[in-house]
C-alpha cells in the first residue's frame, strides 16, 4: 500500500512542479492592456507585434467565448473592477451596458462615423460607446440549381414569392423542406422575427418601444403558415439557429436569409456540399426587395473601470482603422464595417462570390427607433420563447403575439 501512496504522491509532485513553472511574470515598467474577445476577433501575432512596435503598448489577449464575455463583464463590474481594458461589445448588449454605465465614451472623427452605418447601433444619446470591427447583416441566399430544377425562372423579390416558390419546390420533390429559419428558443429566433417583420413591413417597434402589432403579427403568421404547410424542417424548432442556416449548405433547403458569412461559406467545399449553387441576393420585401436590412455587428469598447483608458483608446482606434479592417478580412474573414473598405475589397477581387453583398450593405438601418433598449435580453427571451411555442404548436400566432406583447409592454413601461 505504501507503494501506491508514494506513486500517487510522486505523480502529484512532478505535476505540481510543472505547474509552478507556468507562473506568469509581470513586468511593471511596460505599458500593457488586456483585450477580451471571442476567437473570431483575435488579431494574429504579427499584427499585434506591429501595434506594440508603433505604440509601445503590449496587448494581452483574453480569448473568451462570446456569451461568457458578457457574464464576466457583469460580475467584474458588479464589484467595481474591469474584466479587461478593451472588451467585445455585441450590438444587442449596448442598451444594457449603457444603462449599467460600463462603457467609456469614444471620440471619433466625423468622416469616420459617416463611413460606418453600423456605428449608429453603438451610439446612444449622441455618445459613441463602442466601435464596430466586424459586420454581419441579413442577406438572402437561394439555391440556383434547385430553383431551375423546379422550373422557377428568377430569384424571389417578395416574401410572397418566397412562399410560392417553396411550395413549388416541395411539390416538385426537389427538396423536402425548402425554407430554413431558426425557431429554437434562442436569440436567433428573436432576431429572425425582428428582421422578418422589418423587411416585410419596414417597422417593428412603435415609438414608445412596444411592438407594432400589424407588422409583427404578419411576420408570425408568415412563419406559422410556412410551418403548417411543412415547408420548414421540424428540426429547426429544436436545433440551434446555426444548424438551421446550414441546411442551405447541405442542399437541404432552397432559400435562407441569414448571416453575411454564408456568402463565403457557400463557396467553401469543406463546409458546403453544393458549392457553386448558392447565390446571395437582396432580402425580399413586401412589394419588391426590402429597402432595409438589419445589421448584427460586433464592436469593441473600453470599460469604465479600466485603469489604462488612454492606451485602450489608442488600441481601439488602431484595431478598427480601415487598414486593419482589410487585414482582419484576410486573417479572420471579418466583414468590414467601413463601407469604403468593403467596396474596395469587392472591387479588387478579394471578396469573391459577393452577389448582392455590397448593395445590401447600403440598406442597413436599425429596427429600434430609440436604440437597443436596456431590457433587450428580457425582451428577447420573451420573443424567442413565444416563437418557439408557436413553432411547437402550443400557441397560435395570435397567442404568441399576445404573450410577447404583454411582456414587452410591461418592460417598456418601466
Amino acid at each position: 500500500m505504501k507503494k501506491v501512496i508514494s506513486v500517487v504522491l510522486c505523480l502529484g509532485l512532478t505535476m505540481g512542479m510543472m505547474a509552478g513553472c507556468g507562473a506568469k511574470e509581470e513586468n511593471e515598467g511596460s505599458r500593457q492592456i488586456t483585450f477580451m474577445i471571442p476567437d473570431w476577433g483575435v488579431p494574429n501575432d504579427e499584427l499585434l507585434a506591429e501595434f506594440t512596435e508603433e505604440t509601445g503598448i503590449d496587448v494581452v489577449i483574453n480569448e473568451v467565448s462570446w456569451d461568457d464575455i458578457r457574464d464576466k463583464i457583469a460580475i467584474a463590474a458588479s464589484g467595481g473592477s474591469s474584466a479587461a481594458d478593451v472588451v467585445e461589445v455585441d450590438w444587442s448588449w449596448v442598451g444594457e451596458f449603457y444603462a449599467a454605465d460600463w462603457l467609456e465614451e469614444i471620440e471619433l472623427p466625423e468622416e469616420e462615423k459617416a463611413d460606418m452605418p453600423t456605428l449608429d447601433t453603438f451610439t446612444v444619446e449622441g455618445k459613441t460607446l463602442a466601435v464596430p470591427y466586424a459586420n454581419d447583416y441579413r442577406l438572402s441566399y437561394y439555391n440556383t440549381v434547385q430553383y431551375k430544377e423546379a422550373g422557377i425562372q428568377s430569384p424571389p423579390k417578395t416574401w410572397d414569392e418566397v412562399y410560392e416558390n417553396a411550395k413549388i419546390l416541395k411539390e416538385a420533390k426537389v427538396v423536402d423542406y425548402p425554407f430554413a429559419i431558426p425557431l429554437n428558443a434562442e436569440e436567433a429566433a428573436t432576431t429572425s422575427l425582428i428582421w422578418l417583420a422589418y423587411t416585410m413591413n419596414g417597422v417593428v417597434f412603435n415609438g414608445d418601444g412596444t411592438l407594432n402589432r400589424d407588422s409583427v403579427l404578419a411576420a408570425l403568421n408568415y412563419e406559422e403558415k410556412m410551418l403548417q404547410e411543412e415547408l420548414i424542417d421540424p428540426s429547426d424548432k429544436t436545433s440551434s439557429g446555426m444548424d438551421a442556416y446550414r441546411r442551405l449548405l447541405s442542399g437541404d433547403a432552397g432559400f435562407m436569409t441569414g448571416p453575411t458569412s454564408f456568402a463565403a461559406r457557400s463557396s467553401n467545399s469543406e463546409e458546403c456540399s453544393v458549392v457553386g449553387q448558392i447565390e446571395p441576393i437582396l432580402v425580399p420585401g413586401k412589394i419588391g426587395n426590402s429597402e432595409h436590412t438589419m445589421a448584427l455587428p460586433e464592436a469593441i469598447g473600453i470599460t469604465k473601470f479600466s485603469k489604462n483608458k488612454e492606451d485602450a483608446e489608442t488600441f481601439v482606434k488602431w484595431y478598427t482603422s480601415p487598414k486593419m479592417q482589410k487585414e482582419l478580412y484576410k486573417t479572420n474573414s471579418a466583414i468590414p464595417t467601413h463601407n469604403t473598405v468593403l467596396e474596395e475589397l469587392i472591387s479588387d477581387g478579394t471578396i469573391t462570390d459577393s452577389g448582392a453583398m455590397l448593395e445590401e450593405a447600403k440598406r442597413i438601418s436599425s429596427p429600434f427607433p430609440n436604440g437597443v433598449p436596456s431590457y433587450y435580453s428580457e425582451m428577447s427571451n420573451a420573443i424567442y420563447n413565444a416563437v418557439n411555442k408557436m413553432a411547437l404548436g402550443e400557441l397560435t400566432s395570435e397567442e404568441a403575439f399576445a404573450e410577447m406583447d404583454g411582456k414587452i409592454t410591461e418592460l417598456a413601461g418601466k
Partner: protein
Amino acid sequence: MMKKALPYLLLAPMMIIMGVLVFYPVIETFSYSLKKWKLTAPGDISFVGLGNYVSVLKSPSFWYSLQNTLFLLAVVVLFTTIISIAVALFLNVESRVSGLMLAAAVLPWALPPYVNGVLWKFIMSSGYGFLNKLLITLHVTDQPVEWLSSRWLLLLAVALVVTWRSIPFMALVCLAGRKALPGSLYEAARIDGGSSFQIFRKITVPLMLPFVGIGITSTSVTAVNVFDEIVALSGMGDLGKNIVVESYLTTFSFLDFGKGSAITYLVMLLAGILGIFYLRSLNREVMYG
C-alpha cells in the same frame, strides 16, 4: 493541552478553506438576495428584505421550473441509485477483465458536463442524431422522432444524460463501501447456512447503506443543479428550464443580481432539505463489532 488542540489542528486546513471559499461567500450571496439590485439600474440599489423571494415565489415561471427540477431529481436519483449499485456489485466480481471494466466505468465521469450534453445531442438530435438513424435503419419508424421538442421527453432525455454522468461516482463510492465490508462476515454467514439472497439483504444492503447514502446525497445535489446538459440539449428556452437555468437567466442574462441570488438560495434550500434528510443516515457511523 497539546492533546486537546490536536484534532482542531488537524481540521484547521479544511476549516480555513471552507470558511473563506464556502461559508463567507454563501452569506454574502444571501445579503445580495435581500437587495433590489439590477445592474442596468446602478442608481437604484436598496434593501428590500424578503421582497425578491416574494416576487420569485409569485411568478408562474418559477413554479414551472420547479416542476422540471423535481422531475429531474426523481428520475435521476432513482435510475442512478439502482444502476450504480448494480454496477458496483458487477465491478466487485473478480475476473480477468474487472480492471478494464473499472476503467470503462469511470469514462463518462471524466467528461465535462457541457461536452457530455453535446455528445448526447449528437445522439438525440432530430436531424443528424444517432437514435433516429438507428430507428430508421431498423425500420421502427420512417420519420425522425422529435426527442427534444416535447417537455417530458426532453426532460427524460436530460435526466438520462445526467444519470449517465452520475453513475460512475456513485458506483465507485458503492464499490469502496462494498470493499470495506470485512470478508469474515460473509464467511460466517455462509457457515451459518445463509443463501446468497439472504446475505445480500441482511449484510450487503444494510452495511452499504451509509455509502449509498452519500451517493444519493451527491446525486441529488447534482440533479438539482443540472445546468450544462439542459443548455447543450435545448438551450435556455422555457420548455426544459429548471430553477438553475432560471437563476442563471435572471442573474446573468437579465442582470438582476438581487432576484437571481434569491432564486439561487431557493435552489440551495431545496438541496439543503434533501441534504439534512440524508445527513441522518450518514451519521449512522459504520462500526463493526
